[in-house]
């Protein structure tokens, strides 16, 4: 069953990526699916009944739930990042306050590698950030503000 939902999510992401103009070859790499499976997906085949519907429900989850769920059922981290980025459309502006001590807990926590440390301060890539807020909650100095744009 989890595999079916995973296919559903990959299908949704693939559709978005096609719309964004990526080639099937590129998409198969980005989602870690082989090309023939991908072409089946895009033709609406090879997906068990209900998977797409469930994936669409999952897509309506809060960013955090969507991310945690996706991370749990998609085994490949890069694919998770692609799915989250294509399926979650909201934009976030992220501010790291000067009270950041550079402990790196956010870096360790972030499931999609949106954070790096530089000069003892966290730097969060707003383009990658999916707004899950996990880092903000774990931050020992409450230095992270994530706002929906």
């Amino acid at each position, binding site marked *: 069953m989890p595999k079916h939902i995973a296919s559903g999510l990959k299908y949704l992401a693939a559709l978005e990526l096609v719309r964004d103009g990526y080639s099937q070859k590129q998409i198969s790499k980005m989602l870690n699916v082989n090309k023939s499976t991908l072409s089946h997906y895009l033709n609406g085949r090879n997906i068990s009944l209900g998977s797409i519907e469930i994936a669409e429900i999952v897509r309506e989850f809060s960013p955090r739930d969507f991310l945690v769920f996706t991370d749990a059922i998609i085994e490949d981290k890069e694919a998770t990042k692609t799915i989250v980025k294509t399926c979650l459309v909201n934009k976030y502006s992220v501010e790291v306050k*000067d009270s950041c001590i*550079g402990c*790196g807990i956010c*870096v*360790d926590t972030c499931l999609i590698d949106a954070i790096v440390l530089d*000069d*003892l301060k966290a730097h969060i890539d707003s383009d990658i950030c999916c707004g899950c807020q996990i880092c903000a909650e774990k931050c020992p100095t409450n230095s992270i503000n994530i706002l929906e744009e």
Partner: protein
Amino acid sequence: MAANIKEVKAKDFNVERSAEEDRELSFKDESCVGCGVCESICPVGAIKLGSVGAIVRNDIDESKIEIDEEKCVLCGMCSVGCPVDALEFTVDGTPISEIETYPKLISSAEIDDDTCIYCKACERACPREAITVARQLPDRSKLVTGEIDIDKETCIDCGICEEMCPADAITIDQKGPEDFDIAVDKDKCVYCLVCKKACPVDAIMAACRTCSYGEYDLDPKDAEVTGKALIDDDACVRCGWCEEVCPVDAAKVEKPFEGELNLDLDKCTTCGACVDVCPCDVLFFPKSSAPGTIDDKLMKDEQFCIYCGACENVCPVEAIDVKRTGIKCTPTKSKSWQKSIDSLKTN
């Protein structure tokens, strides 16, 4: 997320988190002076200073600080603040003292081998037993010159010269009741002429050339003491005793903190906790100058103070006030780190 793993070994501990980076904090109780700087700089309140007075004075088997590994976020601030390097913090195996982005207290203690005369004054004065002076002395035979000869025919085998020789240079080999050999080890003999003067039968002829003709045939290079003075960085607290006692200014010490040490003698009850805890031998009880005289209860040699604050923390009656007015530290771009370092200054 990876949780912190704590490992305790006797009074030392390690806290580790391995994820994107491997972060590790290690504490060495032996180096710790119980000053509490780590406790005050920790941004998440994970470090608690123990009962340092009781631990140091009564040899209690307890660590001077405790860390709550659930609270610790492995930021490394305690390591930067520690004035005695008891807390080491590494990122991916590299100590942060070698990583430029991290600030670092500026302190050092060095003994210049070119200037050092290996007199060991620093070794004796160091309150932390952190200095070892290893020295090689010149051969005694190269510092003296002379001649000595014992006339075996005249010698009566009395043994007086052997007994009196201060350098143990004369040996008599007793082979039988009347059969003996007598020999002088010229590497040991210093031509002091004691044997010659003591011999009851004038069997010894000896002359000291240094006395008669001066030092014409001695090479001053042969008289040089060579060696090496080593400072154990783990034990050294940069107190400056070595610099003060060095007769040739070979020792140089830079302290990380500047400040003031104030004693309130009205409050002091002379319990001695501060004297026992001070890592720098700054505080002491004066010897009474005359019977019946009342001197100050407690005295200080403030030039050796590192303003760590251990005495203030341990004083049960708040009779000690340590003010830190300056922190010597390399710059950091992080505002929060700069703020934390500045917070070590007392107003």
